[in-house]
C-alpha cells in the first residue's frame, strides 16, 4: 500500500463519521416526512405554502419570451403577457361572434375619413386615395408605477440622468426606490408609432406599415441618418416631426394613411399601437442598464390590468395587479361577476415548463389552472362519443374539469407553386391535375391520424368565424365534394383519375414522355410530429393516383429560402390570422403579393386577374351584401383554380379547472385573464384531495433494504466462518 494513499484512508474514516451523522439526520428526515403527511399541505406542491389560498392564477409557458416590447413582439406566446400589461386603443369583444372591435383606451371607435386624390373627404371607398383615423382617448388613465416616471419635488425625472457610476448600483428594477406615474396622453400613442420606424427598435411590422402610414419611410430615413452621424447617441423621437401621426390635443391624435386601408382598424387592437411614454426610452437608454437586463424588452411599462413584478424568463414571470388600473367592468353575459370591476384575479404566475408531460401532470394535480391537450395526453383526456363528438374522459369530468373547443382563425394547406411548369399556372390541364390531387388527398384522414380529430376540413381560404366565411351544409367546395342524398361526400377516386387523364397523365403516366409523373412536396421539418408516418401517409395519398411523390424535408429556414426563390412544386404551410377580416386570408392569393416577384405573403405565387380586381374592391367595401357577393365570387374562383389543397382549420381544445370562472374560448383575445376569476379555497381543497401522499412505497423500500442487509449479514457470516485461504507466492508454495 502506498503511504501517500493514506489521505484516502483518512477520507474514508471521515466519510464514516459523516455518514453516521447523516444517518441520524436521515432518521429525522423520515420522521418529518411521516409527520408532515398529517399536515394539510400536499408534499408535491411546487409553490410556497403561504400562497396556498392566494387569489393567484398559475399558468405555464414552454418558450420564454424574447421581448416584451410592444413594438417588437409578434408571437402568440409573448402576446399573452404583453396584452395584460399594455393596452391598445381598441380590443376584441370577449364574447361576441363574429369577432367585433370595441374601444379600450379610445373613447369610441375611430372616426375614419377617406380622402380623394385632391385630399378632399369622400364617401366612396373605392375611389379614395388616402385615409385618416382620428382617435379620442379616455382621460384619467394612468401608467403603472415605474421608476422611469418618478419625479422629484421640482418635477424633474429622478432617474433620467444617472452617471455611469450611479447606474452601476442598479441591478434590477426593484433596486429603484422611487416610482411614479403620469396620465396617458395622445403623445404616447404618436410616440409609439414613431418607434415602429426606429432603427433602434427594429419593429417587424415596419415594412408593412411603411406602405400604409404616411411619412413613416421618410421618418425612418431621417432616423437612420441621425444614427449614422451619432451612432452612440440614443434617439429622442420627440424631436422628429411626423405627418403620419400627429397629436391634435391632449387626448386626440390622428393617423394618416397613404391608402384607404379599412383593415387598419384591426391593427389598433394590436400591441404595436399601444401607448409608450417617452420617459421610458430616456430611462432605459442610460449606460449600463442593458447589461443588467434593465430594458424595455424585459421591464415593460403599460396601463394594463397587470404589471410585471418579476421577469425571470428562465423560470417565472410574475404579474401583479396594477394599482393605477382604470375602472373597467366585466361585460354583461359572463356567468360570474358580470358588471363588476375587473380584474378579479390578484396575481398571475407563469412557470417555465419545457416538456409537455410534466406540464400535463401538474394540471391534473391541480397546480395549473388551465391547460391545452398535447397529442401524447389526448387519449387520456378525450373520448369521442357515438355521435363522433369529443367529450372529456369520466375521470376528468368527475373532477369538474371543463372542456372548451374553438376553431382557430387559421388555415393549413398544401400549396401549389403557380410558377411550376407541371402543377402551376392557369392552363386547364394543370388546373385539372390540381383538382385531381385535391380529391385524392384526404385531409379528413390527416385530421384524424395526425391531429386526433382536432381540425375542421377546409372548403376554402376562409375559416369559420371570419366575416364572409360561409358555414353550413351548403358551404362545400363543389370541385372536391358533392351532395348525395342530402349528405356532402368527397368525390370518388374514379373522378380524380378522370381529371388526371384529362390533365394528360392517364393512370399517372405523362403522355408526352411516357414516364410516370413524379412530384415533389417540400415540408419544413417539425420535431413535434412523427415525420416518418406523415411522409408515408403523403406518399400513399399521391399513390392513389399512381403519382410518385418525392418529399423534401428541410429546416424551417431552408424551407423559407425555397419559398422565396420559388424552388418548390408543392409545399405544406399555414397562416394564422392577424385580424378577423377576409382580407387577411384572401391577400394570401392576391397576385401583387406574390412571394417570388414582390416578396409578399402569397407564397404560392397565385395569379388571377379577376381575383386580383375583386380583391381590391372587396378589401375596401363595407361589410354588407355587396362585399359578401364579392367574397363568394373570389372563393368560388380559387376553389376552381385550386392553387391550394384546402387543408384544415385547427380546432383547439382547452381545459380549465373547476375553480376557474368566466373562461370563454376566444383565440383572438390574448388578455382573457382580465375577465376571469378563481375560487382559491376550492382549489386548495381539490389539490389536497388529488395529491394524497402514498406511504406504502416507503415500507416496501424499507423491506427491500432490510432483505439486502440480511443477505449481506449472511454473506458476511459465511465469509467469516470460512477457513482462511492459504497464501501462495508464485513458485514458492503456500506460506501458511
Amino acid at each position: 500500500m502506498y503511504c501517500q494513499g493514506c489521505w484516502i484512508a483518512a477520507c474514508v474514516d471521515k466519510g464514516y463519521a459523516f455518514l453516521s451523522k447523516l444517518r441520524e439526520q436521515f432518521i429525522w428526515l423520515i420522521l418529518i416526512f411521516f409527520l408532515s403527511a398529517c399536515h394539510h399541505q400536499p408534499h408535491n406542491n411546487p409553490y410556497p405554502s403561504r400562497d396556498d389560498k392566494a387569489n393567484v392564477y398559475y399558468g405555464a409557458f414552454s418558450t420564454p419570451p424574447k421581448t416584451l416590447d410592444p413594438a417588437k413582439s409578434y408571437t402568440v406566446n409573448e402576446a399573452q403577457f404583453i396584452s395584460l400589461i399594455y393596452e391598445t386603443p381598441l380590443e376584441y369583444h370577449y364574447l361576441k361572434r363574429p369577432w367585433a372591435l370595441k374601444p379600450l383606451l379610445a373613447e369610441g371607435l375611430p372616426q375614419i375619413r377617406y380622402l380623394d386624390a385632391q385630399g378632399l373627404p369622400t364617401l366612396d371607398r373605392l375611389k379614395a386615395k388616402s385615409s385618416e383615423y382620428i382617435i379620442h382617448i379616455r382621460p384619467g388613465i394612468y401608467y403603472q408605477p415605474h421608476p422611469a416616471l418618478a419625479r422629484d419635488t421640482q418635477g424633474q425625472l429622478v432617474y433620467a440622468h444617472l452617471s455611469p457610476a450611479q447606474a452601476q448600483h442598479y441591478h434590477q428594477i426593484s433596486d429603484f426606490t422611487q416610482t411614479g406615474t403620469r396620465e396617458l396622453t395622445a403623445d404616447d400613442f404618436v410616440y409609439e408609432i414613431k418607434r415602429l420606424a426606429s432603427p433602434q427598435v427594429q419593429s417587424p411590422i415596419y415594412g408593412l406599415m411603411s406602405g400604409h402610414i404616411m411619412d413613416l419611410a421618410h421618418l425612418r430615413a431621417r432616423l437612420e441618418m441621425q444614427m449614422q452621424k451619432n451612432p452612440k447617441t440614443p434617439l429622442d423621437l420627440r424631436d422628429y416631426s411626423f405627418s403620419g401621426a400627429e397629436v391634435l390635443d391632449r387626448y386626440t391624435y390622428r393617423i394618416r394613411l397613404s391608402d384607404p386601408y379599412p383593415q387598419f382598424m384591426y391593427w389598433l387592437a394590436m400591441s404595436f399601437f399601444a401607448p409608450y411614454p417617452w420617459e421610458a426610452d430616456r430611462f432605459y437608454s442610460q449606460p449600463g442598464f442593458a447589461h443588467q437586463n434593465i430594458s424595455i424588452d424585459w421591464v415593460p411599462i403599460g396601463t394594463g390590468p397587470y404589471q410585471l413584478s418579476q421577469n425571470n424568463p428562465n423560470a417565472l414571470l410574475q404579474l401583479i395587479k396594477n394599482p393605477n388600473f382604470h375602472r373597467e367592468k366585466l361585460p354583461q353575459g359572463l356567468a360570474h361577476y358580470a358588471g363588476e370591476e375587473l380584474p378579479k384575479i390578484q396575481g398571475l404566475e407563469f412557470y417555465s415548463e419545457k416538456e409537455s408531460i410534466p406540464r400535463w401532470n401538474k394540471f391534473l394535480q391541480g397546480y395549473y389552472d388551465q391547460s391545452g391537450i398535447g397529442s401524447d395526453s389526448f387519449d387520456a383526456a378525450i373520448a369521442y362519443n357515438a355521435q363522433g363528438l369529443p367529450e372529456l374522459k369520466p375521470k376528468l369530468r368527475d373532477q369538474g374539469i371543463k372542456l372548451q373547443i374553438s376553431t382557430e382563425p387559421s388555415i393549413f394547406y398544401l400549396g401549389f407553386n403557380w410558377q411550376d411548369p407541371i402543377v402551376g399556372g392557369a392552363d386547364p390541364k394543370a388546373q385539372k391535375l390540381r383538382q385531381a390531387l385535391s380529391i385524392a388527398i384526404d385531409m379528413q384522414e390527416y385530421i384524424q391520424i395526425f391531429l386526433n380529430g382536432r381540425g375542421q376540413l377546409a372548403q376554402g381560404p376562409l375559416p369559420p368565424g371570419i366575416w364572409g366565411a360561409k358555414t353550413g351544409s351548403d358551404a362545400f367546395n363543389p370541385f372536391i365534394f358533392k351532395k348525395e342524398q342530402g349528405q356532402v361526400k368527397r368525390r370518388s377516386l374514379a373522378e380524380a383519375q378522370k381529371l388526371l387523364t384529362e390533365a394528360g397523365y392517364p393512370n399517372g403516366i405523362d403522355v408526352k414522355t411516357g414516364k410516370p409523373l413524379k412530384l415533389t412536396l417540400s415540408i419544413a421539418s417539425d420535431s413535434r410530429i412523427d415525420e416518418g408516418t406523415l411522409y408515408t401517409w403523403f406518399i400513399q395519398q399521391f399513390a392513389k393516383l399512381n403519382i410518385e411523390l418525392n418529399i423534401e424535408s428541410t429546416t424551417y429556414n431552408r424551407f423559407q429560402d425555397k419559398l422565396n426563390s420559388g424552388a418548390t412544386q408543392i409545399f405544406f404551410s399555414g397562416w394564422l390570422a392577424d385580424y378577423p377580416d377576409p382580407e387577411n386570408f384572401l391577400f394570401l392569393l392576391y397576385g401583387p403579393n406574390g412571394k417570388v416577384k414582390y416578396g409578399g405573403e402569397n407564397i404560392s405565387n397565385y395569379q388571377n386577374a379577376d381575383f386580383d380586381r375583386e380583391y381590391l374592391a372587396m378589401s375596401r367595401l363595407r361589410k354588407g351584401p355587396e362585399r359578401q357577393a364579392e367574397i363568394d365570387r373570389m372563393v368560388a374562383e380559387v376553389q376552381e383554380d385550386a392553387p391550394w389543397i384546402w387543408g384544415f382549420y385547427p380546432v383547439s381544445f382547452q381545459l380549465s379547472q373547476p375553480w376557474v370562472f368566466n373562461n370563454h374560448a376566444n383565440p383572438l383575445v390574448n388578455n382573457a385573464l382580465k375577465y376571469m376569476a378563481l375560487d382559491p379555497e376550492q382549489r386548495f381543497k381539490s389539490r389536497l384531495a388529488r395529491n394524497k401522499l402514498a406511504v406504502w412505497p416507503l415500507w416496501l423500500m424499507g423491506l427491500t433494504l432490510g432483505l439486502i442487509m440480511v443477505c449481506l449479514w449472511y454473506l458476511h457470516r459465511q465469509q467469516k466462518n470460512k477457513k482462511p485461504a492459504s497464501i501462495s507466492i508464485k513458485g514458492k508454495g503456500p506460506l501458511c
Partner: protein
Amino acid sequence: MLIYLLRKILYAIPVILAVNVLTFMLFFKLNSPDDMARMQLGQKYITTEALMGWKKAHGYDKPVFYNTQASSWHAFTDTLFFEKSVKLLIFDFGLSDSNRDIGQDLKTRMGPSLAVAIPSFILSIVLSIVIALFMVLYRNTGFEKFLIVSCIILMSISTLFYIIGGQFLVAKTWHWVPLSGYMPGWGQFKFIILPVVIAALSGLGANARWYRAIFLEEINKEYVQLAKAKGLSGFQIAFYHVLPNGALPILTGVVVLIPSLFMGSLLLESFFGIPGLGSYTIDAILQQDFAIVRVMVYLGTVLYLLGLILTDLTYSYVDPRVRLE
C-alpha cells in the same frame, strides 16, 4: 510544475481557437444570419430591409471569416469571427441576440445547475464505489451476480426512461415531490431530490462495473494477500486497502468532469424545469441565438481543458511517482 502548467495553458489556446472556428463554421453552415434575423423578427411580413436592419444592429452584416471589401489586415479584423471572438476570449460575453446580458444570465443560472450537478455527481461516485467494492468483496457469489445483472439493467435503460418513470412514480403517483420546478434557497430541496437521484442512478451501472474492474485488478495483488494473511476482514481490506489504491484510475475519470458540472444537464433541467445552464443551452439552440451558443461552447471547452489540467495536478498529488515536468 509551474512551467508544466504554463505549457498546458499555452497548448490550450490553439485548442480554444480551433473550437471557436469550428463553432462558427458549423453554426453558419446551418444558419445564415438571415435565418437568425427571421427567427428573431418573426415569420410574417418580413422584408429584406428588415432583415438587413436586424443584422446591422446585431453585427451580423459582416462576412464570417474574410472580408473581401476590406484591405490588408482589416480583411481579417473586420469580420464576424474577429469581432465576436476577441471579446469572448477575454470573457466579455456581451448581449444575446434577444438583448439579454449573457454574463448576468450565466451567473443566475449557474446556481440551479450546480445544485443538481454536485450532489448527483457525489452520490453517483460514492454509490458506484460502494457497490463496486461489495461486488469485489462478495465475488463469485450469488450476491455479486445479482449486482452485476442489476448494473447491466441500469446501464441498458435510457436516461429519459429514468426521468419519465421517476416523475410518474415518485411525483405523479406517490405525490412525494413536485413534478418540476425550482425555488432558490432551502426550498429547492424538494425540487432537486428526484433529479439528483435519477442523475446518480442513470450513471450507476456503468460506473460500478468500471470501478469493479479496477478493484478486481487490485484485489489479486500481493499486498491484499498479505493483508488477508494478517487476518484483516474482507471489509477492512476492501475499504482501507483496495479503495485507496484503486482510487488513482478513478480520479482520472472523475476530476476531468468536475469543471464541466457548471454546464448543467440538458435533459434533466429541461424535464424538471430547473432554470440552469443546460436548459439555457437548449433554448439558445432552439432559438438560434448564436451569441449564447458560442459562449456555451467556449465555456465548455475552457472547462474541459481545465478539467484535464486538474486531473494532471491531482495525479501528482495522489501518486508522488508522477512528476509534472
